[in-house]
């Protein structure tokens, strides 16, 4: 079992022209041990910042984040070897022109022998049903195939935790279902932000983030209800 601990974490960033830094997250303390955790909240509420803390992509301004005992600031390499991160847009994540090459790129550090690396990449692609598409340009793949490929490239190095930042936002219904089935079959601990409340309801635990704070932490059904009430009470930012 993985244990991720956020202890009194705040994240602030300087904003051009503003006298004071902007607070993205405020006093967040969490212990994340469940196998499936959903993070829901409005756009700009701090979901992505929370997730990025877990992989060391964002460093806390105050407080600490640790993954299985490794501090995300002092021991960021160890943290990143444990925590895989999947971005919303796979095209910003896939670095190489084809799927095979991208998965092989993930494996370059861990497998030096090129034959062995190729075989391992093929095994990973086959597991995700992508082997037939391995040599196609990433631009020729559908949105769902690209997202699966991004997932495969991250899982190739077998992280203990998988963090996904709105993985289904750019997908149509069919590809969302494909992603959902794929995620359900993974053994990794999954922490995922999403606007797909159906996906959130399948989690073991759900967090609602609003204005940089965790405003609800509990069962997914209650979390979704809380989030709906929050949205109903407050108009969207553009309508204020």
């Amino acid at each position, binding site marked *: 079992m993985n244990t991720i601990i956020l202890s009194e974490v705040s994240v602030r960033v300087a904003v051009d022209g503003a006298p004071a830094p902007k607070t993205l997250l405020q006093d967040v303390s969490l212990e994340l041990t469940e196998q499936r955790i959903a993070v829901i909240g409005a756009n700009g509420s701090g979901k992505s910042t929370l997730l990025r803390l877990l*992989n*060391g*992509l964002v460093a806390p301004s105050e407080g600490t984040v640790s993954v299985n005992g490794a501090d995300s600031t002092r021991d960021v*390499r160890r943290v*990143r*070897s444990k925590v*895989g*991160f999947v*971005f919303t*847009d796979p*095209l*910003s*994540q*896939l*670095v*190489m*022109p*084809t799927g095979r*090459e991208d998965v*092989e*790129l*993930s494996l*370059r*550090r861990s497998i030096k022998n*090129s034959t062995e*690396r*190729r075989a391992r990449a093929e095994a990973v692609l086959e597991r995700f049903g992508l082997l037939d598409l391995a*040599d196609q*340009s990433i*631009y*020729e793949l559908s949105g769902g195939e690209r997202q699966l490929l991004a997932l495969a*490239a*991250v899982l190739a*190095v077998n992280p203990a935790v998988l963090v996904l930042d709105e993985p289904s936002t750019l997908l149509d219904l069919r590809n969302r279902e494909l992603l959902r089935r794929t995620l359900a079959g993974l053994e990794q601990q999954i922490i995922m932000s999403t606007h797909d409340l159906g996906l959130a309801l399948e989690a073991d635990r759900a967090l609602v983030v609003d204005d940089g704070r965790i405003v609800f932490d509990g069962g997914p059904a209650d979390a979704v209800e809380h989030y709906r009430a929050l949205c109903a009470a407050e108009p969207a930012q553009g309508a204020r």
Partner: protein
Amino acid sequence: MRRHGVLIPNYVPGDSIVHRTPLWLKFLLVAACGLASFLVVDWMVSAAVLAVMCGLFLLTGAGVERLARSVWLVTPILAAIGAVQWWQLGGPTAARIVLNVLVCVVAAAVLTVTTPVQALLDGVVALSRPFKRLGADPERFALTIAIMLRSLPFIAGAFSDVRDSARARGLERNPRALVLPVFITTVAYARQTGDALAARGLGEPAD
């Protein structure tokens, strides 16, 4: 973003003599073409070398279309360079400079269509291994090449998308409406790529 033609074409599987040529020899060929562009002073020699390079490219089986696509993308820049050189130094010099650049482009294309990217990166790692003694990380050299190969078509694609957006708004003649969004998109892409690499632990110092 749409798929766009690429300056440096992707690997095309095959069994031609160029495919079977050792990587070090192909690297040497590209380096020699780059060096020759400084040494060759006769445009007719440059034209002959270009013809040989095009012949080598076609020998790979990658086809005329791929060759034309990789050359076509540099045509506007070469036309501008050629015009300036013609005005400053005369026709033969302008022709030599343009042809020498084309020789380098086609030589690079010969390398990339006949070599899988991972083999290319392995080659870069092997070539840069001596620099390890000076504290350099060969894997970072390889990663830099990989990112360059990926970024060139992205920037070309960004330019096409921005040009279409500008055209839709009737701003196609406004250079700011073209250059500024491409610049901003490219910077955002660089940041995203940096995040993606960092998240995957790529580009960090070797053990």
